[in-house]
C-alpha cells in the first residue's frame, strides 16, 4: 500500500467526521466554490471575521501559491479577493 494518498485520505475522513459534511478550506482546489459553515474561533483572530470570513460566506479558491503557500480567495459579499495562509485555512470549515 502506498502511504501518502492513504494518509491524505485519512485526514479528509478525520475532518469529515469532526464536522460532518464540512471539510477544511485548504482541501479545496483552485476554481472550486464553497460556503463557510464554521470557523474554529479559538485558533483564528477576530480579524478573519472582520475581513469577511464568516459562517455563510460563499467563496471561491482563485489562487494557491506553490509548496503550501498562501491561498487566494474570492469572497462573494463584499466582492473582494483576500489571501490567507494554509495554517489558518485548516481551521475554516466549508461545505460545497
Amino acid at each position, binding site marked *: 500500500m502506498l502511504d501518502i494518498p492513504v494518509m491524505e485520505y485519512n485526514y479528509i475522513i478525520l475532518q469529515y467526521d469532526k464536522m460532518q459534511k464540512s471539510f477544511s478550506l485548504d482541501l479545496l482546489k483552485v476554481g472550486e466554490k464553497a460556503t463557510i459553515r464554521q470557523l474554529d*474561533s*479559538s*485558533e*483564528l*483572530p*477576530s*480579524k*478573519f*471575521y*472582520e*475581513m*469577511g*470570513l*464568516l*459562517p*455563510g460566506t460563499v467563496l471561491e479558491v*482563485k*489562487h*494557491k*501559491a*506553490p*509548496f*503550501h*503557500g*498562501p491561498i*487566494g480567495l*474570492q469572497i462573494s*459579499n*463584499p*466582492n*473582494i*479577493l*483576500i*489571501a*490567507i*495562509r494554509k495554517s*489558518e485555512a485548516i481551521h475554516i470549515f466549508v461545505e460545497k
Partner: protein
Amino acid sequence: MGKTSLFNRITKLHQHVGNYPGITVEKRDGSVKANGKTYRIIDLPGTYTLFPTSMDEEIVYNVLADKENPEHPDLVVVVAEPNNIKRSIVLYQQARELGVSAIFVVNMIDEVNAKGIDIDYQQLEAYLHTKVYTTDARNGKGIAQLIHAFDERPGYFPGQFETDETHKAALEEAKRAFPLYTEYQTWQFVAQENVSFLAKEQQEVLADIRKRHQLSPNVLQQAEAIQRNTKIENDLKKIILQKDNQHLNKTNKIDKVLLHPVWGYIVFFFLLFLVFQLVFILSEPIMDWIDEHFSTLIDYAASILPEGPLSNLLTQGVLAGIGGIIIFVPQIAILFLLISLMEETGYMSRVVFLMDRWLRPYGLNGKSVIPLMSGVGCAIPAIMAARNIENTKERLVTMLVTPFMTCSARLPIYVVLISLVIPNETFLGFGLQGLTLNILYILGVVAALLSAAILNKVIKNQHKSFLIFELPSYKSPDWRNVGLNMWEKTAGFLFGAGKIILAMAVILWVLGNFGPNDKFSNAEAYVKQANPTLDSEDLEEEVTSFRLEHSFLGYMGMGIEPLVKPLGYDWKMGIGLISSFAAREVFVGTMATVYSLGEDVDPDDDEERETLLSRMRSEINRNTGQPSYNFASGISLLLFYAFAMQCMSTIAIMKRETGSWKWTLVQTIMMTGLAYIVALIAYQLLK
C-alpha cells in the same frame, strides 16, 4: 488607499507629516480653509475595525475612543469604497456608538458602474442616520460639497450592536466599574486585551472581569464581528444591489499570470531586477550632476571666503557633508517612486502573496518583503516600512535583520575597496570585480535570513502568527499619491538622517583638524627635524599626514588599533572605521583625508578615484610591513562592512521604532559582533 487620495485632494499641499507622541506611527495632518474658517484634518491610518491588531490601528482606536486625546476629532469622515461599503459601515457604527459624530463618504464613485453596483443613497442616509457624500478623489468630483459639510454634527445614533446573552453579565459588571462611559465604550474595554489610555488599575479590573467570566478578548471581538456583519448584510439587501464585479474579472485575469506558481515568480524577479537597474541607471546622471556642481560650489566658496580654519570648516566640513547627503537623494527618490508605484497599482500585495511561503521558515512574514527590499536603498525608510506587520515578533525580527541588506551607502565603499584588492580580470566570462559585488549583495540577503531564523528561535512570541490581507483590484496609480509618498520618504532621509550625517561630518572635521598636543600644532618643525632633506612638496604632504596622525582622530584610530589589528587593519583604517560609523558613505571621504588628498574625492570620477586608489595601494601597514590594502585585509574589510552596524542613523531609527534600547543594542552587538568574527576568520585564513 482611496482615503489618502481624498485627504490629499482636500488639503492640497497644506499638510504635514510627523509622529504621534511617544510612538512612531506616522501622523499626517493638514488644513483647509472653507466656510469662513480653517479646518484641521487628520489622515488616520486605514483600518477595518476599531479592534486594533497593529500599532497603526491602535492609534485609530485611541484617537476616537479617548476624549482626552489631543487629536480627538469633532467629526469623523468614514471613507468607503463602493466595492466594500459593508466593511466601512462596521467602522462607522463603531465610531458612532463610541459617541463620535461622523459622516459617510463613498469614494471612487466613478467606478460604481464598472463594479456593477447600484446604491440607493436616500435609504443609505436613513439607515446610517447621517449624510452620505459621493466623491472621486482622482478627478476631484464631490470634494467641494464634502468640505462644505465639515460643520455637520449628526446627533442621535441608535446602537446597532446587541451583546450576546452569554456576555451580558460581564458587560453589566464592567458598566458598574466604568459608570462614566457609553455602553459600547465599556464593551470595547472588556473586549480588548489592553486599552493603552486606561490606568493600570482599570486594566486590572477589566482583566479580572474577563477572568471570572472566562471570556477571551478574541471571542468577544468575533461575536461582535459576526453580529454586526450579519445584521448589516441583511439590512443592505434593499439598499445596495451588487451585480457581477467587472473589475474583479479583469483583476482575476491579470492575476492568472502574476500569481501563477511559475510565471508569477519569473515576473516578480524580473521586476525586482528592473527596479534595481533603474535605481542605479536613472540616478547616475543626476548624481554626477550633483557631484560636479557641488565640487564647483565648494571651490567657489573656498575662493571667496577668507583663508583660515573657519573657511576650511565651512567648505570641507559643512558643505562636503551636505554634498554627501544630497548625493543619495536621487537613488532614494527613485527607489521610493518605484515602490510606491507597486503599492498604488496593487502589485505589492501580490509580492506578499508570492513571498510569504519563502520567508515564513525564517520567522518572517510575506509583508517583510517590503522592508527587506527597501533595505537595498536605505535601512532607515526600510525599518519604518515594517510598521504594517501586525505580529509584534515578526515586526521586530524584520527590523532587526533589515540593516543586513546591502544599502546604497555601502556601495561607494565596496567600489573603492573592490577596485583596490580584486584584480580586474574575468572568470568564466564574468568580471571578477562585478562578481565580488554580486556576492556581497547575496551575503547581505543570506545574513538577513539566517539571523532571522536564529532570532526566531530566541525571541518569545506573544501572539500567534497569522496572515490575512486583501488583494486589491489592479488600478492605475494616483500620481499625486506617488509623488507625495516619494517626497515624504526622500525628505525623511534628507532632513532626518541628513542632520546626523552632517553633524558627524563636522565633528569628524574638528577631530581631524585639531590635536591635543604640540606635535599637532608644531608638525612642521617635527617633520623637518626628522627629515631635513625633504623638498617642499614632499614636506607638505609629510606634514599633513604627520598632523593627522597626531590629531584627535589619529589618536582615536591608534586607540582602536589593537582591536582591529587581528583583522589586518592599521590605525588609518581604524580612523575610517570610526568615521564611517557616522554613516558609511563618510568612509571614502575620510580615506581621502587620511591619505592627505584633502579635497573631496569622488569615487565615481575615474581620474580622482585612480589618485585615491594609487595612494591607498602604496600604503604600507607598519605592523606587518605589507601593503595596507592587500587581498586578505581588503576582503576582511569588505566583509566587515557587509555585516557591521556601521550607521548611527539606523541605530537612531531602531530606538525610535522599537522604543527600546535593549533591542537596539542587541542589533548593534549582533551585527558588529558577526562582522568582527567573520572579518577575523577571513583575514586569518587569507593572510
